């Protein structure tokens, strides 16, 4: 679950070529359940007003 991301972060800390911020992002993704992952994705789109096709059209996106 997402709340356990620190455990995953500790396991992947040795990954080369990534910043700590990137490792935290990946750890959160891996720790989360599929529904939590999708929720994070939707929240990100919503936070930019880009969730629905209609909102995106209004912002000038093709789709």
């Amino acid at each position, binding site marked *: 679950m997402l709340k356990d991301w620190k455990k*995953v972060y500790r*396991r*992947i800390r*040795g*990954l080369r*070529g*990534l910043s700590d911020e*990137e*490792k935290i*992002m*990946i*750890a*959160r*993704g*891996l720790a*989360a359940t*599929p*529904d939590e*992952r*999708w929720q*994070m*994705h939707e929240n*990100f*789109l919503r936070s930019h007003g*880009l*969730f*629905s*096709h*209609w*909102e*995106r059209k209004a912002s000038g*996106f093709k*789709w």
Partner: protein
Amino acid sequence: MVGMSAAIIQGVPATTLDTDIWVELPARQYIRLWNLVKRQGGVALAPTMYALVDGSLVNFIFSMTGLKKFAAEYEQAREMYWNGLKIRVLPLDRIYQSKKASARDKDMAHLPLLANVMKAQKMNDEQNKQ
């Protein structure tokens, strides 16, 4: 489920504007999918691209570049629970393979992230076993 939406539900910290669903149908039968979407209040934006009633986009795919046939990939797909449904999801290494084979700029841009998440996943799984 394939593409970046499949990658996201497997833990890739990314975003996408549509959900790609690979269907075992000849492309000429897209009307069957359109009827299904229409019955649920969706609208067609292109022959295989539909906006659902909540404004989310679904893109039906009839063939995937760089992969085996549907049945072979389906058999190897990961079974996951998502939104209360049991679904089949193309594994990350196969998503990587299809994106690499398609070689479009937007697909190539995803490769480093996919590779890093696969490495992290392996590392996490190995240390979890210890």
